């Protein structure tokens, strides 16, 4: 193992330990699991809830068609895209700036470590948090959906999980970048959420022109979950574009940390 890799592993190990000790590795997946379970359960009980709560005239028959299992999974992903993304970004917003502001980064970055390894170790822990939470939440949703509503193909679940995971990874790469560029964690969260929302909106409004942007990934994931295929020739482009954007964000973060007038 080269010394650079050994240092990266040491830092990544520290990041994972921090995820555990700060209980982030517990409560973030818990939020996703709750969101994941809530969707099929609330769909299942919707008629009952309406009957109890609504001021329906006595004797009126409520006809709400039970949605397909695949649709419930797509709705779950939409939940992850709002509350889930918010929680992930909040968990990651101070990942670099908090250490720089407290002075802990000064003691680390003064050692013979590269700023890229430092950023890579932060990225590793964010990836683990995002994919772990998403997988836990989505699988719980799948389980309850097949129990209460209907079976969904494993291939659809896996496909949409991977595409959606890439979208969350992209949002977290932005969070990491802004956390390096900006000293305020709140400003970093705001910028990352704003940029993700703007990209999603762009892809929603101009599906033809902006379909190859990362913002269209969440839409493709819903498509895959509900219909089994992304249904667009821009899907491949948007995968490639997102991967490139993630790599670019990480390199930019490392470079800006290295170049900044005051490293700590």
């Amino acid at each position: 193992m080269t010394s650079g890799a050994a240092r990266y592993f040491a830092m990544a190990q520290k990041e994972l330990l921090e995820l555990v000790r700060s209980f982030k590795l517990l409560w973030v997946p818990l939020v996703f699991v709750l969101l994941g379970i809530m969707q099929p359960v609330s769909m299942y009980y919707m008629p009952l809830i309406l009957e109890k709560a609504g001021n329906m005239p006595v004797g009126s028959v409520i006809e709400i068609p039970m949605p397909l299992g695949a649709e419930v999974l797509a709705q779950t992903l939409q939940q992850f895209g709002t509350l889930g993304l918010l929680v992930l970004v909040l968990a990651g917003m101070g990942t670099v700036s908090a250490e720089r502001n407290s002075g802990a980064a000064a003691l680390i970055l003064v050692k013979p470590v590269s700023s890229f390894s430092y950023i890579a170790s932060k990225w590793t822990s964010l990836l683990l948090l995002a994919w772990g939470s998403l997988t836990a939440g989505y699988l719980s949703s799948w389980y309850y959906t097949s129990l209460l509503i209907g079976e969904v193909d494993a291939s659809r679940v896996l496909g949409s999980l991977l595409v959606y995971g890439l979208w969350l990874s992209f949002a977290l790469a932005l969070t990491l970048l802004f956390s390096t560029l900006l000293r305020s964690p709140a400003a970093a969260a705001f910028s990352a959420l704003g940029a993700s929302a703007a990209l999603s909106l762009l892809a929603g409004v101009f599906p033809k022109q902006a379909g190859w942007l990362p913002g269209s990934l969440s839409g493709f994931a819903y498509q895959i979950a509900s219909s089994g295929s992304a249904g667009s020739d821009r899907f491949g482009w948007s995968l490639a574009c997102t991967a490139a954007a993630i790599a670019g964000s990480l390199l930019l973060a490392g470079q800006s940390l290295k170049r900044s007038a005051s490293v700590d």
Partner: protein
Amino acid sequence: MSVPLLEVNGLSKTFGSVQAVGGIDFLICEGRCVALLGPNGAGKTTTIRIIAGLLKQSAGTVGFVDGDHVGTGGNRAMIGYLPQAPSFYNWMTGLEYVVYAGRLCGLPRSHAVSRAKELLERVGLNAAAKRRIGSYSGGMKQRLGLAQALVHRPKLLVLDEPVSALDPIGRREVLELLQELKRETTVLFSTHVLPDAEELCDDVIIINKGAIALQGNIAEIRSRYRQPVIELELERDEPSLKWADAFAERHRSGTNVSSQTAGLIYDVSRQGASVRFSVTEVDAAREQLLGELAAEKVRVSRLQVGYTSLEDLFMKVVSL
């Protein structure tokens, strides 16, 4: 005998319109303990952070000397750094932190563990090694900071105000530890109090407002700038105090009655009822003064002849 280790050349740093450090040069030789001494805001922290590579200078160079060659930029593997108020990961234990620091410096895990245990023992933290850093006192954190800075056996230990924030007991502990450490490695530390510098250092660099006011071997400076002084203690009566002020005024305006006095005494300062005369020749000045004191009927309670201390010199160069 003295091998140069680190060379700082024309170093300056401006923050916006504030010039924190304005073109300083110095050389640190191997095995020396060097104090960077100056009042608050002098530019000590800025200088140290540039040397540690945490801050980019506006101009000038910092480099390790290797034979005839001076490197450019700090070499992180050669420096052990401890900031003014170190901040660790409070959720880690002291042992975990030093092991982590060792691994970041390239030690394999098992080496890092044994080195960390050795260092924590050394700084007197082995009983607290398995406790969370969040529960450490200020003195313990400072000693942990020393342990993590030493983990890779740096050639130069750079410490920013290592004892300034500590209570008297913590201060004593850290000073004693530094006394030992300076025998093993080259040390550069900053301080704003002269006694700390006098207690530890071989060489001193006095900086004020971002510029070097004075530098050199501390014993040499002490003897070179040693000046005779005559101190008068007056009774606190009106005429005597008036006389002192008048004398000082005449001295300043260069209209001293006796032209001889003007040459013998080059500085007069009064603080409360005590007056200090910095003189060139003790005997002649004393004679002059006694004559005037008798003639003016000044009530002297004590007259003492002595020498300026390093403290006087320090106060003088930093009040310019």
